[in-house]
């Protein structure tokens, strides 16, 4: 439990409050403190996202409201408040209104298990790593519900495509997540971060990180996987019938989800708050986590704004025929190698508290394995690319027709 929380709890009981009430109030305060972080950052995130996108596209971005456009989000919020909220007559009213709430809540709820510093966190669940995958599945269902409740063909079609995309990319995501859980021997987020005191997991298994990175980019529906907003094909996807603040909530949930994924990747693969002098002060630890998460977040924005959209058949083929087999091979190889090293006493059996020297042989072996797997994969991709190019040159007309046929 949060430090402040137990303090407040005791204070209230001492001053004569009922124990149950004091407990509840302190829980509520803890929740507000923890959820305050994502809720405040999301306002900033919208500005950052627009500014970065603008810079990449050689524009200036919002610069009118407030200094360097910082107040733009508030202005947008005010504008959204005055927007008429249109509910189509044929919509299922209850589900239509609940869907944006669930969508946003499913992202905020992930922050309950994010440890900000070694001592400041909401809760440290024993099943932490599984918790955020489970919570994210509410978001998927919310999209399905939104698409269906709108009672619009395009919304339903968009929801179907998005949901099948989301569930497909959840498979490699969870397989990649197994690697940190396996290395740390625990699903608790605190244990996973502490187990990286010797070596960050991104060094032990860069492939798992890359798989996780790609799949979480898909989970948030960002380019090259932006079927959620395939404007040219599906009008606007599952949220076509939404307007005003409800639409804004879907939007904010997406922005927040991207940043949340950055923080999760920092925790799972980049040692969370670990960094020089993190033990000196919780503020420094918090700053390290924020900096790592922020850098990963910026790279996802960079990716989003530079790559084109893929077709749905390409997205699905890439997932099922490349990413899933790769993630399975990765976990099999890593678990095999680490077990062998542990049997030979070359790797510690408990990574929490292991020093960098303990980890050195394991690091070298695992890195070599990852490198070999990567080279092998690059070889396959190169060969496939050559084949595709040769085919295209041999029969351009036929190729064009085949491509058009597979395009949805």
């Amino acid at each position, binding site marked *: 439990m949060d430090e402040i929380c137990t303090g407040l709890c005791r204070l209230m009981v001492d001053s004569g409050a009922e124990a149950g009430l004091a407990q509840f109030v302190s829980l509520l305060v803890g929740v507000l403190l923890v959820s305050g972080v994502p809720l405040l950052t999301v306002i900033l995130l919208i500005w950052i996202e627009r500014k970065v996108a603008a810079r990449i596209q050689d524009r200036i971005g919002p610069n009118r409201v407030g200094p360097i456009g910082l107040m733009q989000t508030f202005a947008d919020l005010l504008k959204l408040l005055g927007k008429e909220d249109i509910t189509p007559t044929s919509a299922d009213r209850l589900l239509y209104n609940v869907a944006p709430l669930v969508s946003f809540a499913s992202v905020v709820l992930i922050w309950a298990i994010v440890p900000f510093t070694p001592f400041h966190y909401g809760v440290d669940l024993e099943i932490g790593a599984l918790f955020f995958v489970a919570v994210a*599945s509410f978001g998927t269902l919310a999209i399905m519900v939104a698409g269906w409740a709108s009672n619009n063909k395009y919304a339903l079609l968009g929801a179907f495509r998005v*949901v099948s995309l989301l569930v497909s990319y959840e498979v490699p995501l969870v397989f990649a997540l197994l690697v940190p859980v396996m290395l740390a021997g625990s699903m608790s987020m605190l244990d996973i971060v502490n187990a990286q005191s010797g070596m960050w997991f991104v060094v032990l298994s860069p492939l798992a990180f890359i798989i996780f990175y790609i799949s979480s980019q898909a989970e948030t529906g960002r380019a090259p996987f932006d079927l959620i907003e395939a404007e040219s094909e599906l009008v606007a996807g599952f949220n076509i019938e939404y307007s005003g603040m409800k639409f804004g909530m879907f939007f904010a949930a997406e922005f927040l989800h991207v940043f949340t994924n950055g923080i999760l990747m920092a925790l799972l693969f980049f040692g969370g708050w670990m960094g020089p002098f993190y033990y000196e002060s919780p503020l420094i630890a918090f700053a390290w986590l924020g900096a790592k998460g922020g850098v990963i977040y910026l790279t996802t924005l960079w990716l989003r704004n530079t790559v084109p959209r893929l077709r749905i058949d390409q997205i699905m083929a890439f997932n099922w025929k490349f990413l899933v087999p790769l993630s399975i091979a990765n976990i099999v190889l890593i678990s095999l190698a680490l077990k062998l090293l542990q049997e030979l006493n070359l790797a510690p059996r408990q990574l929490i508290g292991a020093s960098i020297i303990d980890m050195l042989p394991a690091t070298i072996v695992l890195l070599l394995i990852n490198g070999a797997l990567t080279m092998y994969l690059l070889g396959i991709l190169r060969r496939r690319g050559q084949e595709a190019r040769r085919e295209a040159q041999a029969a351009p007309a036929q190729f064009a027709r085949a491509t058009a046929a597979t395009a949805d």
Partner: protein
Amino acid sequence: MELNAISIGFVVFTIFTLGGGFGVVTTRNLFQGTIWLMVSLFGVAGYFILLSAPFLAAVQILVYIGAIAILITFAVMLTRSVTRVKTRYIRLVPSLLASLALFLILIFGVTMPIFGGVSPELAPATVASTRDLGAALVDENGYVVPFLLASVLLTGAMIGAIFIARDDSA
């Protein structure tokens, strides 16, 4: 039953579970039925937490809300009734009587201590962790045979379902 977090949780999850279940068997619209089913199963996940099995709760959410709900939705959309099913129920009265009788028998068995008695109110203080479950699953004295059989079952189910559902004509 005094008022504390557990009893409040129990009441809330009971409303979810039974209300959702009631929704499943009464609603005419299958998509809404799916949502009701998920409400009900969410309540069951809540029970698992109250019973100190958070891992099962997470898995319940992951498997049911994350996967089976999606699958049922897809199936509902794929099997749109051409001729609208007019009657929602068949054999309504006998089924109602049968399930009521079943319920009464079960309640009688649960509350009356004739089948060995259901007195335990004590609950063990320590509960096994997920790690213990993982160790027991692959232990030769534990559940290694059902563990591998589960894998075979899943493989069979996947192959069978793909074989059935695949549309060769397209």
